Every structure is written in C-alpha cells, then in structure tokens.
C-alpha cells in the first residue's frame, strides 16, 4: 500500500498547488481585473462588485493570508463566485451544466483511442516492417496535427460536403435534454464526429509508444523461450510481450491526460459542442474571470483524479509496485 499512499500524498500536493496557483494568478498579474470588468459591465451592482473585489484581492484591506483562508473557506463550501457574463448564475452551476458533456465525450473517446492505439502498436511491433509498421510516418503526421485542424477538415468533409453528420451543438434543436431515446440518440449522433477526431489524433501517440517498448520487449529472452516452447504466436504476443510492454503506456496515460484535455477543449469550440471547453472560450472572450478560474480549477482537479485512477490501475498491473517498499 506504500505506493498508493505515496501517490495520494503526491496528488494532494498537486491539488494544493493548483488551488494556490488559482488564488495567486489574479493577484500577481499586471492590471486590475475588477477595473476591466467594471469598464466592460457597467450594470454590475454593488454587491457583486464587492464579491469580485474580495475574489481578486483588490480594494480589500485584509492581508494576503487572511484572503487566502477566506478563499479556501469558500472553496470548501463549493463556492466559486458568480459568473460576470451570465450574471447572476453561480460559476458552479454553469460548470455543472457543461461538465457532463465533456466528461462523457472525452472519456469515451480517450478510452477508445487508448485501447485501439495500444492494440495497433502491439501489432505493428509484432510484424516489424509490415504494412502497419510502414504506415508509421502517416501516423506521425496525425500526431503533429493540431486537434482542431483535423476537426475543421472533418467538418468540411463529413458535415458540409457530404452531410453525413450534423455540424455543431450537442443535440438537435427542438429536443430538450432528458433520459428519452430521441434525445440520447441525437446526442450520440452529434458526438460521433467530435469523438472520431479525438480518437484519430490521440491514437498515434499510444501506438508509437507501445510499438517502441514492444520492440524492445520482443527481443527479451523470455519471449524467445515462450516461442521455443511452442506457444501459439497470439499467446506469446499478448500474454508474454504485450503484457510487459504495456506498463509505460499505462504510466504515460496519466501524463498525457493534460494534452487530451487541452485538445478536447479546443475541439469543443470548433464543433460548438456544449461542454466545458466552449464555456472556457466564452469566458475568455467575455473577460469572465471568475468563470475562467473556476473552470481551470475544476479541470485541474478532474485531471488529477483521472491520474490517480491511472496510478491505481498501474498498481494492479505492475506487481513491482506491491513488493517494493520504496521507490
């Protein structure tokens, strides 16, 4: 359990850093966010101004430390302030409405991409010099392509030119969100194209890493022994070589999650998908600083949580984490 405890402590530190960075940014950045907001939103009432000033640490007389503890207290009560642009909506309400869209879409797409990429990586390493292996440069091109550019091309081809998929929004107009079949089917239909772009662009990285580790693993003696024993190639490939080669991929999952989230955020803007990325975009364009920071915090914590899950999977996948007393 030492491994898990250590990781838990690490993520606690990481979460604290995220929370503190979130507190520090408006205070160390040049310029006064509140003044910008007053200039932009002259209709703000006195109460919300006061709340904003407290949040950004301007015109308040409390010391930095007391501000920090007020901030932590607010956070503990799930209070992220009020959105300026969507006033008087709470930041937490806005995020709660949009987060599920992102979680479901990005979660599903990332899982598919991870599984598919790892499988293709296994195959291309197993058949070195085969057609899949030789197609690698094409996959590197996909890896170097910005997510949203591929999304633009996909929209052009599939939605505008051929009309196979709908463009934009999370579901058809005229439907109201609910657990009924017309809505769910429409939501799935609208999510296929965005999900496809995520899968295609992020798959290459898993595939490449899996291939490179797998190539090294295949050269190990125990793989040779397994082949010499006369085990079926499939068994050697999956239970001997791939099983040992997959560990870096699982470990890398946590680290790459930040990139996946980043790509997904931009993707949502291209597709006008009603998730947290689109909300972030709207917050940026309207200088809605409270919402901006709330979104940053929620995304950071969500990524940390996902990393922790990946670590727990790693704990079960790699027996070394269970026997060693320390790292």
């Amino acid at each position, binding site marked *: 359990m030492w491994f898990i405890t250590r990781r838990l402590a690490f993520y606690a530190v990481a979460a604290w850093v995220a929370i503190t960075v979130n507190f520090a940014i408006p205070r160390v950045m040049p310029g006064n966010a509140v003044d910008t907001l007053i200039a932009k939103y002259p209709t703000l009432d006195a109460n919300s101004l006061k709340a904003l000033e407290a949040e950004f640490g301007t015109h308040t007389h409390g010391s930095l430390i007391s501000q920090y503890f007020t901030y932590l207290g607010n956070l503990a009560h799930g209070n992220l302030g009020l959105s300026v642009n969507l006033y008087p909506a709470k930041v937490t309400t806005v995020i709660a409405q949009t987060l599920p869209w992102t979680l479901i879409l990005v979660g599903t797409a990332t899982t598919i991409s991870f599984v598919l990429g790892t499988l293709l990586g296994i195959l291309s390493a197993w058949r070195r010099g085969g057609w899949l292996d030789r197609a690698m440069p094409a996959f590197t091109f996909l890896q170097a392509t910005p997510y949203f550019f591929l999304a633009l091309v996909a929209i052009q081809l599939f939605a505008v030119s051929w009309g196979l998929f709908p463009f934009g929004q999370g579901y058809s107009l005229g439907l109201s969100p609910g657990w009924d079949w017309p809505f769910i089917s429409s939501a799935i239909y609208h999510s296929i194209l965005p999900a496809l772009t995520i899968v295609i662009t992020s798959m290459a990285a898993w595939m490449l890493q899996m291939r490179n580790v797998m190539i090294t693993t295949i050269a190990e003696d125990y793989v040779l022994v397994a082949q010499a024993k006369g085990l079926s190639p499939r068994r050697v490939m999956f239970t001997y070589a791939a099983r040992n080669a997959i560990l870096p991929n699982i470990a890398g999952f946590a680290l790459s999650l930040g990139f996946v989230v980043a790509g997904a955020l931009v993707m949502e*803007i291209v597709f006008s998908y009603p998730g947290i990325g689109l909300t972030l975009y709207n917050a940026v364009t309207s200088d809605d600083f409270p919402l901006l920071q709330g979104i940053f915090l929620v995304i950071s914590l969500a990524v940390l949580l996902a990393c922790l899950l990946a670590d727990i999977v790693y704990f079960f996948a790699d027996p070394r984490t269970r026997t060693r007393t320390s790292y």
Partner: protein
Amino acid sequence: MWKRRLQQFPAKAKVGAALLGIFILVAIIGPTIAPFDPTATTPGQAIPLGPNATHLLGTTATGQDVLSQLLVGTRSTVVLGLLTGLIATLLAVVIGMSAGFLGGFPDEGLSLLANVFLVLPALPLLVVVLGYLPHSGELPTAIVLSALGWPWGARVIRAQTLSLRNRDYVAAARESGERTWRIILFEILPNEIGLIAASFVGTVLYAILTSVALAFLGVADLSKWSYGTMLYWAQNGNAVQLGAWWWYAPPGICVALFGMSMVLLNFGLDELGNPRLRAAGSVKVGRRTWRPSDPTPVLRDHPQETA
C-alpha cells in the same frame, strides 16, 4: 568524415531537418517575399475567393491574401516555438541536472515540483494566465509556455544524470580533484546531448501546438499574423461553413508539417540512441522480415521451410 556521419544519419531525421530548414528560411525571408500586405483588404469584397492567378492560395472574406498571411505569419510561430524550446530546455537542463547530481533533499523537492507541473493541465492554466495578459508578444508568451513546458525534459535529464553520476569515469574525475562545475559541464553534459536535443525537439512541438491552440482560442495578440491567428480569423469568419478550405487549410497544414519535422527529428534522435529501433538491416526469411535484433527465427513460424 562529415559525409559519412551524414550518411549514417537516419533518413527520418534528414527529412525532419530539411523540413525545419525550410520553415526557418521562410521565417527569415517570408515577410520580404510576401506578394501582398497580409492585412490589406479589397473594398467591397464579402466572400472568400478560391485560389486564382493573383491570389495563389485565395483570399479571406475581406479579400486579404492567404499566401501573404502565411508567409508573414510563419515568423511568429517559428520564433515562438524555437524560443520556448530554448528557454524550457535550458530550465530542464539546469533543474534536471541539479536534481540528479545533488540528490537527497534538493532532488526530492525539484522532482516533486516537476511532477506537479506535469499533471496540471497546461492549456487551461495558460488560458487563465494569458487571459489576464491580452495582446502579449512572443517573449511573454514564450516565457509562460516555458514555465509549464520544462518538466518533461527535466525528468528525463534527471534520470540520466542520476545514472551517470555513479559511473566510474565521473568518480575518477572527482578523485583527480576536478571541480563540481567542471564535472557537470565536461563529464556529464556531453553524455546527455542526445537527450537534451530530444527534449528540445519535444518542447518545440508542444510550444507550437499549444501556441496555435491559444491563438485559435483568441488568447493572443490578434493584430499580429501567425498560424494560430490565421486559424482564429478563419474560424471567426465561418470559413468552414462557407466551404473556404483554402482559408483554414494552409495554416493548419503548415502547423502539421512543422510539427512533423519535430516528430521526425525526434525519431531520428531516438534511433541514433537506440539501434534496435532502426529499420535498416532487416532480412526477409520466408514471408516474414527478420531483423538483427529479433530472436533467431523459430522453425514453427515457417511451415513452408520445414516441408
């Protein structure tokens, strides 16, 4: 000797280096050879025009020349990418080597810092930070990008330093009374050049993709031309809905090519360091390709030869 060296260079690395060279060249001479002023509009024009003889890559909705925007915008993207790569790699080398060489408490602290920065999602953080700094130029953006981009390299360099520190030749240098800075600079650093180069290349790739994404989000100086701002204006002008592929495809393809030059260079560096990854030297036995690193062919894999 140089010629032989060059021949030994993996083909992927050569292609990558050539691509990078083209981009750097365009970044230098682009603004001079641009046929039009990228910002100049054609009065009265309301729809984007496709590629034609005057405008080789077509125009935007307001009649701005896409090719000129591309040639002028290359500089900003390339400079930002390379500048970030430079600053972040410097940070990574200094932090990674100090952590690896000093060990103990400084190592614990620096490693923790690197790991925390690795798991924090960079893009939302960058959006928030740069959201407060609108209209920032290349240098502030590069500094903010570097501040979040160093941990990848630092981790790898730290691990390598840790292993090099205990090698015999380092111990010998220490015994012969060499100073610490001399050991670090002349004994350890040269053995990490490949790693440092790979981390530079990786960081540049990150910087390009992130900066383009940021500009696309509108968190950049939108009055300047870069691949990111081009895509931003294309998206803003509904280029996709209008079917004006010539408006958004060129900057996107350029980003992908620039990124690909980095990925290919990285591949090449990997292959230089790990001969097993090289594609050369494979032999065809029966239906399958065998390489020097593979185990000796096992008979049951080749039924046609046993017959």
